[in-house]
């Protein structure tokens, strides 16, 4: 079985197992990647039917699975266009530094190598340079030191930064208001990026569906929530088929569930087979970002204090076990319990404890000791490999 078949089987399984929401999104991903307008037409017809189903229509699971299977067959038959994007670095920043003329803040020595299908997370406390770094990468700010190189495809004139910017997308934390309906704005954007007539409608509708905006097509800026405004901005960015997507605090206005969905969507979009995307996103949602990122850059006072990749985690064992623990037990009680595991340090920030152990101790040892001591535990997490440990307390 090739990768396309595997993927279609995976989607079919989502629906078969009742995971229709994720199945629906993956189905749209697969359809979008075909770049085939006839597939788009059939997919959108399915979306109409599916929306009716969610709106209270009656259909049993077998009808849904039948329709999905039929659509997957169409997607499978479609010729999958290879846009020729090689898995080389699309953005390479070396020794990037920026000092503002006013104020004492300075960003320094940042190296970023972004590849297609890669997500880099930028984390750090407020005012530590996340937005500055994103704006540098997008060319909104001028770096004082270092270089930024873009290696993008489908750029008419690679030496023109204007042309390069047609393939970059930057979504700031606060977007500007727009006028008219959501759909008109997306169609307008599509038309400017070469999608005309029916193709424009189909492409825009597909992106709109993928971003979960179908129900808001006629809504104006004032009528949609902050979360959907973010989705709109994302849809607008995706319409132009960018190769690099820069997101500043995309999770800031989202509820917990929406955060997970958006991050999952970003992961799926980044790993698109035909249109892989390099994504850099900044966020305060440390654990969520770590889950989807191949690399995390922790910025503290403008300096990249830590750069971590998943591959490194697998290959390199941390030198210390650090557990984050939320409990009503006192520090003394914890000290007593974890004496057996030779706890090195216990710090408390008012909400959670950070417990530091030697590298020979594993997280299961800690859980075992906690269970034996019957301490009241609300939450715990192994943060040994997480940039969480670099936050104060």
């Amino acid at each position, binding site marked *: 079985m090739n990768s396309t078949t595997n993927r279609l089987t995976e989607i079919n399984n989502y629906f078969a197992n009742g995971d229709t929401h994720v199945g629906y999104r993956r189905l749209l991903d697969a359809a979008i990647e075909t770049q085939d307008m006839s597939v788009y037409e059939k997919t959108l017809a399915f979306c109409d039917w599916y929306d009716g189903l969610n709106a209270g229509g009656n259909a049993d699971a077998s009808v849904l699975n039948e329709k999905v299977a039929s659509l997957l067959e169409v997607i499978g038959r479609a010729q999958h266009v290879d846009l020729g994007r090689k898995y080389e670095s699309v953005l390479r920043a070396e020794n990037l530094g920026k000092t*503002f*003329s006013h104020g004492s803040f300075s960003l320094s020595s940042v190296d970023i190598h972004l590849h297609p299908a890669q997500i880099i997370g930028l984390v750090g406390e407020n005012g530590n340079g996340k937005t500055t770094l994103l*704006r540098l990468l997008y*060319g*909104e*700010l*001028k770096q004082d030191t270092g270089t930024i190189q873009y290696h993008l495809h489908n750029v008419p004139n690679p030496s023109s*930064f*204007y042309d390069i*910017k*047609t393939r970059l997308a930057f979504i700031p934390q606060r977007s*500007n208001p*727009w*006028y*008219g309906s959501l759909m*008109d*704005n997306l*169609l*307008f*954007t*599509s*038309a*400017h*990026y*070469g*999608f*005309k*007539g*029916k193709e*424009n*409608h189909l492409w825009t509708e597909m992106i709109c569906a993928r971003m979960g905006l179908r129900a808001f097509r006629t809504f104006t800026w004032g009528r949609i929530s902050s979360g959907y405004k973010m989705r709109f901005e994302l849809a*607008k960015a995706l319409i*132009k088929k960018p190769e690099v997507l820069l997101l500043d605090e995309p999770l800031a206005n989202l509820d917990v569930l929406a955060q997970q969905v958006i991050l999952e969507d970003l992961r799926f979009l980044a790993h698109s087979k035909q249109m892989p995307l390099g994504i850099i996103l900044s966020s305060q949602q440390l654990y969520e970002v770590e889950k989807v990122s191949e690399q995390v850059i922790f910025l503290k006072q403008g300096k990249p204090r830590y750069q971590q990749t998943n591959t490194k985690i697998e290959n390199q064992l941390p030198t210390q076990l650090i557990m984050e623990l939320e409990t009503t037990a006192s520090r003394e009680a914890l000290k007593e319990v974890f004496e057996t595991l030779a706890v090195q340090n216990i710090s408390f920030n008012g909400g959670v404890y950070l417990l530091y152990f030697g590298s020979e101790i594993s997280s299961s040892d800690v859980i075992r000791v906690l269970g034996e001591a019957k301490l009241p535990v609300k939450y715990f997490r192994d943060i040994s490999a997480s940039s969480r440990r670099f936050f104060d307390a």
Partner: protein
Amino acid sequence: MFKNLYDRLLTNYPLLWNTRVIWVLALAFAFHLLFFISGFGSLSLKTLQEYSSLDSVQGGDVITFSFLCSLAILITWLVFFLRNNAFKSFFIVDRFHLVKEFVIIFIIILISITFFESYRLGAKIKVKSLTSQRQLVREANIVNIARAFIPLSKADYFKLNSCYNYQTALHYNEGFDYSDTSHYSYAETNNIKIRAALALPDAFSYKNFCRTAINLDEYPGFVKDSDWIRRRDAWIDNRQIDSIQRLLDQFIVIADRYNVSHDLNTATLAQLVFADSSHSITRVYRNSAMDYTDATENSEYINLYQFERALDLVDESHLDNQDTRDHLGTLVAEAYVAICLSILLLCFRLYTKKVFLISILGSIIWAIIFSLVAMSSRSPMSTGWFYLSLFILFLFLSLLFLRSQAGRTATGIVLNWHIYLLPFVVMILCLLIIDYYDSNIYELQYNNGTNIMLSDAERRERFPIGYWINNNVDLLFRLNLLFVFLYTAFFFTHLSKKWHIMPEE
């Protein structure tokens, strides 16, 4: 239908959708049509004599109303147009997007500020429909010859009048007493000649009249003065009273057609030609119904001004080429207004609000400084040099800043300032060259001691550029429009795109 059109524009022609060009042009054309109809309906045969030209038909009221309509349309358009801005929202792929946008803006503004031109056109076409060119020529021919038999001024019939040799012609002043020996000019040669002529029996003969009331030399069929004078003389010599009266009757019909006020008896007029053997005029008719000197009503009169006004208006309406030439200056001025407004709007579209506001405020300050320089300067040309220097300075700074990528706001401001000055750069350059040319000519003619006037050929030979510019100022002003248009559409938008990608700090 509207929904389909809206959808089609949005998905296929986003620029047309964004600029609302279809809707605003449809509205503007509707206004043009209304103004055209109003202009067409504003005139009738009876009212032609109230206007001396198409410009006077247009009048101040129409222009004011047209201005208010333009304002209403442009404001409404801007409300919709400024809702979307692709250039600021994302990086447009189409290389000529801004060029097209500028062209559309210019067209919309030009069409929306020229409603009164449609009024003028409507009036012009109405006049042409009321009196055809053939009829105009026929009427002018009648009026010209009939005019000789309706004395409104003794001076027109004086013997020493000449319509062919202006150098030897002597004008008779009705209010002057040529027999007054105490007057200092009594012994002047011309007065002696006039006195000698006054002594002749035919000093004020009908045959002496040679003034052409309506000149339509450009039209086929028009009877030139030499021809009608010969015809008139033949009628007088052959005592053809009936022919004269018939002609005068036709004249009255035309006067009635144009509602020209008159009180004339054609039989009397015809007989008066033969009142004495020398065919001298024996009665002078009045030009209006009211005698303003003593506020009494005249019994015999014809308002010839009304006649001339009506026929001049018809003449102007038929002379398309001449009218276009005469009216071209106004059209060029309108195009300048449109292009200046378009540039202003383009800057608002392309630059941030901060840059635009600072550049506007800065421009006001520059204008004040400019005015102070102009007022304090002894030579008006130094103001021109100051203007040119500013333009060059701003252009140089713009290019320098863009190259060094320093100061996005400052770059935007100088870019704006340079384009605000652009429309008048060529004009000022021409004026400076003409001034230089004139001062050189003056120098050669008066300051080298020879005091000899340079001939046209000599001027051309010595100062070919200055001579050519001096003789083609109108053409240069028109060509400048094209230059400003192309410079803004291609070069300025190109620079603006470069500015758009400039980092902030």
